[in-house]
């Protein structure tokens, strides 16, 4: 269970998160929607432990572990995965090498044995096939020269390989074509189960017809202003955020 209580955070001295309260029980998928600049990415960075995102109050625990006390890599080892809104390019770093290093780091954290190059390739090829990704993406530099949609697919591939317990997807649907959207959603749905939770950040109700959320939250001005069932997304699409806040 992810439990966030009274979480406040600032960036460059500017208060962005103004008291977030949110609970995602284990096994559930929650969606977060909200206008541009409302603090959605900030929340995901704070949960993942990015430098410069300073927590000024509140708590965030995952399965009882105080996330805020951990280094980013320790959070990853604890099962937290963030699919970036803007995936980062690593010139010269081969995608396969990166993925294997990441997978082995996380496996080490879980007390599992590391995979050698052959074992990894077998696994990666299987996942890529499911995601309909061409194999040559393994050979290219991490995200270098990838199209916007390819970058997002690469994030989903990483998630599928690392098999996290908590996935935070920050606008992973933005930039994906219709087919890719379905495939990516299948990737998330495949992980769904009693030990998997997700926070899905999106601007589009459409995604939520593929990844059906247990709850939908509206984040505005650094606070969760409204929560509801999956039908809330439809309502937002129809009437906008102004109405959501008023309600």
């Amino acid at each position, binding site marked *: 269970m992810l439990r966030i209580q009274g979480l406040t955070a600032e960036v460059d001295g500017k208060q962005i998160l103004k008291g977030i309260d949110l609970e995602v029980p284990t096994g559930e998928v929650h969606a977060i929607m909200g206008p541009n600049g409302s603090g959605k990415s900030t929340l995901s960075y704070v949960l993942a432990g990015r430098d410069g995102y300073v927590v000024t109050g509140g708590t965030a625990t995952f399965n009882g572990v105080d996330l805020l006390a951990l280094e980013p890599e320790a959070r990853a080892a604890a099962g937290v995965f963030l699919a970036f809104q803007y995936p980062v390019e690593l010139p010269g770093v081969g995608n396969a090498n990166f993925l294997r290093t990441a997978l082995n780091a996380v496996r080490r*954290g879980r007390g599992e044995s590391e995979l050698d190059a052959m074992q990894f390739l077998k696994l990666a090829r299987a996942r890529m096939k499911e995601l309909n990704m061409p194999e040559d993406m393994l050979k290219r530099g991490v995200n270098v020269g990838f199209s916007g949609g390819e970058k997002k697919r690469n994030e989903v591939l990483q998630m599928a390989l690392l098999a996290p317990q908590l996935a935070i997807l920050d606008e992973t649907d933005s930039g994906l074509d219709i087919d890719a959207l379905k495939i990516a959603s299948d990737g998330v749905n495949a992980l769904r189960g009693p030990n998997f939770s997700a926070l899905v950040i999106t601007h589009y109700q459409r995604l939520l017809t593929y990844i059906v959320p247990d709850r939908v939250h509206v984040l505005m001005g650094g606070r969760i202003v409204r929560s509801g069932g999956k039908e809330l997304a439809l309502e937002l699409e129809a009437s906008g955020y102004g109405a959501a806040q008023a309600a």
Partner: protein
Amino acid sequence: MAAVTETIETVQAATEGTYKWGFETDIEMDFAPKGLNEGIVRFISAKKNEPAWLLEWRLKAFAHWQTMTEPTWPSVHYPKIDFQDAFYYAAPKQGPKSLDEVDPELLKTYAKLGIPLKEQAFLAGVEGAGESAADARMPIAVDAVFDSVSVATSYKERLAKDGIIFCAISEAVHTHPELVQQYLGTVVPTGDNFYAALNSAVFTDGSFVYIPKGVRCPMELSTYFRINAKSTGQFERTLIIADEGSTVSYLEGCTAPMRDENQLHAAVVELVALDDASIKYSTVQNWYPGDAEGKGGIYNFVTKRAQCRGKRSKVSWTQVETGSAITWKYPSCVLLGEDSVGEFYSVAITNNYQQADTGTKMIHVGARTKSTIVSKGISAGHGQNTYRGLVRVAPTAKGARNFTQCDSLLIGDQCGAHTVPYIENRCLTAKLEHEATTSRIAEDQLFYCRQRGLTQEEAVGMIVNGFCREVLKELPMEFAVEAQKLLQISLEGSVG
């Protein structure tokens, strides 16, 4: 900030704990008396039982050296070296013997360094098999130079079957005097520069390679230099000749014990490539870099030069410079033969208080000669890293081409990177291109890696390796893996 103290501590732990080559071998040694004078030059020559011509050659170099002054143009700073306060000859008491008879202490030393001195069964026909890492490992012939002497050379007999000469240069002086005399000092003349003159006077050992006409050397050749004795300079001399149509790949590695004092390594390496010959020369330089405060470490003042004398000949230098307190080194190519090719691929890392002033010279003389320079400088801590490169095109070099790319990566804000290109083009039809960039490891790259479970150190290592990829891929595969690990170790603790 807490992060800063943490960084300092990690850097200290890193430098004290991770230079795992820093041990000393306890072995009975023979020394020359301390200091430098004509008597010492004669002493060294006598120790090696050299012919008269070589002693003459040394004495001439020594006389020349005495008239010279230390170069001050490199961007490196260090207290004046007292050339009288060092030993110029140090050798294990037991002289060089066959592989089976080498002192077990020395064998242990090399085993500890991970250098294979034992010959494995060499299977005919494995040459072409080395496509993937899983395939049988290619044997590597090693010449092991310990302080002032070569203590062992492996695979000599196997190589001799192809007419290849691979041995200590002190041995070649006796077994192949005509070749040594014909080529020694023809690429780097005795009076070329201060350190080359010093080396010519007091050089003690190094490797000699001759690849006969049309022969493709069936295995990697390598020399492993080890400085062990205290207060001792190492003056290595290497000479490689690739006769017409031959091919060879050669690698050198180097390490030294951790000491508070600075020790001098002043090498001269000469390469000669005749018509259609090709030499690939790779260096993984891992001399002791000094501690986190900049105390101790090797002064690596080296002259390396190749002459592409033949038509369509090719020389490729690849260097990964991670060690040394100070590196001063410009592996160069003189492109005399028409259509000859020179390449220089370099990674130089300076962490803590290390200084590097390194680069290359590409001298185009022959028509349609081509050169490529790819330099990757990485500075961390208080490290200072200078790329200094000269591209000179003579009027005769019609249609010559050069491509230069210099990239600098900065880690932290107390280090420095400098690019000093010199271009002298006297040929209208030559085409020269130069690109340079300076960047920092971006916070978002580090965070991305760490979010995927990599530690800060692994993340830096991975990003730096990516930055150096174009150079690392030039290394023979087994050394590329070593070099990658070395890059990460060298930078440990550099980001907090």
